[in-house]
């Protein structure tokens, strides 16, 4: 998957988790929390959705990398590079 594919995957996941949020204006280098009403339960869901869809395991210590869209894409790029979209 390319960086753009990964970004789209995250948007799909956010759309599933938080269908009432407007995702069209996400700024990639600003924390999700500042743009969306997401709590710790929702963050756990992002991690769980990634595991469910692509079998990627994200240890709890790495959650900090998932604060922004940019951070998330950076973090996932090596893990998902061989995954076919």
């Amino acid at each position, binding site marked *: 998957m390319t960086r753009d594919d990964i970004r789209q995957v995250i948007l799909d996941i956010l759309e599933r988790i*938080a269908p*009432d949020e407007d995702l069209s204006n996400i700024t990639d280098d600003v924390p999700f929390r500042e743009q969306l009403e997401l*709590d710790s*339960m*929702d963050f756990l869901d992002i991690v*769980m959705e990634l595991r*469910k869809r692509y079998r990627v395991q994200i240890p709890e210590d790495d959650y900090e990398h998932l604060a922004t869209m940019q951070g998330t894409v950076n973090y996932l790029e090596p893990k998902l590079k061989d995954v076919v979209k």
Partner: protein
Amino acid sequence: MTYDTLIIGAGLSGLAAGVRLAYYEKKVCILERHTTIGGLNSFYRLRGHNHDVGLHAVTNWRPPGSKTGPLSKLLRQLRLKWEDFDLAPQFGSAVAFPDVRLRFTNDFVVLEQDVADKFPSQADGFRRFAAHLDELDLFDADPNEISARQVAGEFISDPLLVEMLFCPVLFYGSPTPNDCDVRQFAILFKALYREGFGRPRAGVRPILKALTRQYKSLGGELRLRAGVKRLLQDGQRITGVELDSGETIEAKNVLSSAGSAETANMLDGPNVDWPGGRPEPGVLSFVESISMMDCEPKDLGLNDTIVFFNDSPTFRYEPPTEPVDVCSGIVCVPNNYHYDRPLDDARVRMTALANSAYWFGLPEEDYVCEKAAWFERMADAACRFLATDFRPHATDLDLFTPRTITRFTGHTNGCVYGAPRKWRDGRTPLDNLYICGTDQGYLGIVGAMLSGVSIANAHLLRD
């Protein structure tokens, strides 16, 4: 075959936990002893009418599409839509004491203003109290409890206002007599006063249907008439369950919504060391009446959605020595919500504290006539706080007691809000046995579902 998780009970907490587990592809089965789902908030049909067991109000009402609050959190977690619950907002409710009435709606300002009008000297204290409750960490799992009355007393000096504010809160979710833990109080205060009440036009059915549909479509299994008789124990672990039929099922984890004492009774292995002693069941229970009406209650001047009444300046919330405590109670008119069209039938519901032991001990031949007699006394008491006596327009009556609640939900003493001691983090002394629902600590319709979701998230999804 071994399940990842077996869930005991298809009430709101068990079903909600099931949705979470099935969504993340866990092999899960819900085992329910009764012939239908819903538990303390189930439904039934009697003499041509559909009744809800318990639904007066879904608390935590928010306008559809809201992004914050427990209801929005819950819908997100269950991957359900606002339309799935389709809650219509209430007209407005009241706390009625002998010479004072406080009104509250789904707009907190109405209550704030009414407090300021009726208790001018307390207006500021009330606002600070509400702000203080907002700042508490509601999900703090600390087992040490703090008295909500003590905290209220630090802000509000008029005892009558304290009693009036506590009356609906205790009635709608305190497992302990006369007072409750301040976190529990804060959760309920927000759920009742800040957010308010809604109701699906068709009662609890659409909520239960949405949960079950979601659960099954995700591959979850549901077995009715499948009571769990024993939890099979191997040292510190549960290996599975034995059903009433004798069938055994293996599982890696068991999540029980049957209650903590009830769950402890299912253990058959060596003595388990429960911190603080073996769980004891709660004692607070209620009688509930449903009167079918030949007209819209509001045509008789019954305009409130829910009235919480008490006939003296002090509210006693404890098991009564009499069969029913007729000093206080709840009157609910399910018709008084802003539905898109009126309900097809009309009813008035009443709730009052009950003495479980009395109702359990009553010989069969006296049961029916005692129910009828106590209904009249409850209604006499309630009608003093209503615009009119609704009884001349009542066409049919059903009344259930603590005995009914135990028969259909297995909760000892007909207990509705569970044991005084809660297991907030859902853990038990056994490694893979967890508790959700009433005895975990989040109660009510929304609370029970959140309980199932939280405990599933915390312990049963991560591996």
